[in-house]
């Protein structure tokens, strides 16, 4: 039996990016919700719910970038120049919010409000940039002879803006769900309210973005069995599980909030993201650069890909293991007074 290395690599990169979206999604969401916190004390507590994890969460982004370089250089070398500005904006926004974890502790009269703002603003801008990059990705990239051949602002479209705003609502939903899970008392009640608002907004954007994708990109429609003049039911039917999964996720969030559950809203949020992610995967597979380069064309040389995947097979279980351990270690509610260090 020979292993289909490019396929395995695709699945692993897809999982890494998805884990990044979920994990950094909730902590970026907490940053976005910083704006709405009532007091510096409440913000301290919000930050403490994510402080032990954010660095590990962001590492999945490094794996997404480094992994794409190592496993699919043909895609990495096209997507990065094509999405140059959103990627750069995202990186700089992540820098501002990343240092804010430490700097906010050390800031005094002027410093603390400055880094509080940097944390909120960095989280928001990083999310918007990710959404814009996603929009540009879905709309397709101008590729000639395996290299990027478009302009610097190809990604800047109304469709991308829609995706970006939807992602802000989605991350806010994850962040609010996380805060409901990790806090008690007044902050928990605030988080519950934020979760409700975010759910409604995210639902609207999810529906709008799905429809817009089908309207903007006929290439995507074909993947879903929607042709110009008819619907290909055998293709569409299995795909319908994806929007149904999304609806189930939203229902779990909604009823979880209504019934005052502490964990179901977060779980529901994860399901909503899983549905959205699967929806995107179904729309593009086997393309890794939409409409231009498949994962097989983008794959690295077999011996390099084999070495990377061999390393992943050995190391990923350890990484998942100690990541789970750290989450378990810092389990439970975070009090407003729990110290960062």
């Amino acid at each position: 039996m020979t292993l289909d290395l490019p396929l395995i690599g695709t699945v692993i990169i897809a999982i890494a990016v998805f884990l990044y979206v979920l994990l950094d999604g909730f902590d970026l969401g907490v940053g976005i919700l910083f704006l709405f916190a009532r007091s510096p004390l409440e913000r301290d507590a919000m930050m403490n719910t994510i402080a032990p994890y954010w660095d590990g969460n962001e590492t999945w982004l490094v794996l997404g970038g480094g992994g794409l370089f190592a496993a699919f250089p043909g895609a990495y070398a096209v997507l990065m120049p094509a999405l140059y500005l959103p990627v750069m904006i995202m990186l700089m926004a992540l820098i501002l919010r990343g240092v804010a974890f430490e700097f906010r502790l050390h800031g005094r009269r002027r410093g603390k409000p400055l880094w509080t703002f940097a944390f909120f603003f960095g989280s928001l801008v990083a999310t918007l940039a990710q959404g814009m990059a996603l929009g540009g990705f879905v709309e397709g990239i101008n590729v000639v002879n395996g290299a990027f051949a478009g302009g610097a602002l190809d990604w800047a479209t109304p469709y991308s803006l829609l995706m970006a705003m939807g992602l802000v609502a989605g991350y806010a939903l994850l962040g609010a769900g996380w805060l409901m899970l990790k806090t008690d008392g007044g902050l928990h009640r605030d988080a519950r309210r934020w979760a409700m608002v975010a759910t409604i907004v995210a639902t609207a954007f999810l529906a709008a973005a799905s429809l817009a994708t089908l309207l903007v990109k006929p290439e995507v429609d074909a993947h879903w069995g929607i042709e110009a003049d008819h619907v290909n039911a055998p293709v569409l039917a299995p795909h319908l599980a994806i929007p149904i999964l999304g609806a189930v996720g939203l229902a779990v969030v909604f009823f979880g909030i209504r019934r005052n559950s502490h964990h179901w809203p977060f779980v529901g949020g994860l399901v909503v993201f899983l549905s959205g992610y699967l929806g995107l995967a179904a729309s593009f597979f086997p393309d890794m650069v939409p409409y231009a380069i498949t994962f097989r064309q983008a794959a690295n040389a077999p011996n390099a890909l084999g070495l990377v995947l061999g390393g992943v097979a050995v190391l990923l279980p350890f990484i998942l293991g100690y990541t789970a351990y750290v989450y378990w270690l810092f389990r439970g509610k975070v009090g407003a007074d729990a110290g960062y260090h």
Partner: protein
Amino acid sequence: MAFDALMLSRLQFAFTIAFHIIFPSFTIGLASFLAVLEASWLFTMREAFKTLYLFWAKVFAISFGMGVVSGVVMSYEFGTNWSVFAKASAPVLGPLLAFEVLTAFFLEASFLGVMLMGWKRVGPGLHFTATCLVAFGTLVSAFWIISANSWMQSPSGFVVGADGKILAARWLAVIFSPTFPERFAHMVLAAYLVTALVVGAASAFMLLKDKAQVESKIALRMAIAMCAIVAPAQLLVGDHAGKDILHRQPTKLAAIEAFWDTKTHQAFHIAAWPDRSIAANRWELSIPSLGSWITAGSADAEVVGLKSFAPKDRPPVFIIFWAFRVMVGLGVAMIGLGLWGAWLWWRGGPERSRLFLRAAVAMGPSGFVAVVAGWTVAEVGRQPWVIWHVMRTANAVSPIGHAEVSASLLAFMTVYAIIFSGGVLYILRLMAMGPAGVDTQLTARERVRAPGSPLAAAPPEP
């Protein structure tokens, strides 16, 4: 010099990586220092070690955070600005960089949380394990990055296929390319020196105010011991690396020494103004024949000069010549400081000489300067190649315009200026408070509990 996407991308990469390397250079050494402090504390149960650990862990947290966020940038810049290089080199360098993330980045990031915030949740043994894993992770990270860089300097273990693509042929030869061992040793020693100089400076600063400050006395002695051993060792490793350059990268060596003509009895230039446009030094202050002796071991040895290479194959000379002199000059000063400190220690105590304490404070930032200067020699010296004699830097750049690179370069300069000011301010503020001051303050505010203290075994708060 045209400010096109190539030139701007080079400037941006130089700026972002020079900024980045400052933090790993410090945290590689500091993580090991923290592991030693925690071990000393667990072994002796002396409170001073705990105080020192908690103090330097604060400094570590700030520096490490800045290293992480500026490091994420690097893994994307390969693609955003150097996509042609990325695509061509991925069959060789891809696994190395992926392994860095898989073996080191995750380890550091995950156990950093336990190390900084896990006091109340794990026992002393596990906490110490977390510190050691973070320290180990920083070294593993350095291993892979230096491995990738060494391959770009002296590529080995690869073949060029019929389609012109680079392929790895022997992975061990790729990972352990010929110059890897000395470069890895040079970088790790540099990191330990950087840390020793900073720890020494902070301790000396406290001792200038209060020469009986217990923690600072201990830390100053640890820093002196490190400096006195590592600084001379670094000179030997560096000299070995230099000898290797003579054969492997003769243009780099010629630029370092501003040799233009190929001849025996090359003069050693203490100072000079090398000018590429006239292929000569505008002026020079030299010692006859010493250049051949230093670089090749004999005054009669013929050493190649830059004029033996086509102008398009010569690296920039001025910057390499001077960066090298800054690095070596500071290195010699570090050796002097280490030996001076060791002598004072032997004579009764380094804190008794205020002159030494002032010198130690002044030398605090010198490690960073030397590291950046050293990397400048290595990277600018590799020009005009991005992969030595395989790919030219000019052919490596992404198909992007100068406008977006100008925008991102300006934005990086702004963002890095902001966070650098913040980070330096907060670290200096901590240092001004000193180990004792910071510890009591944080104990009151954040209720830090030591592993091994009765409360450490208490269950986590509900």
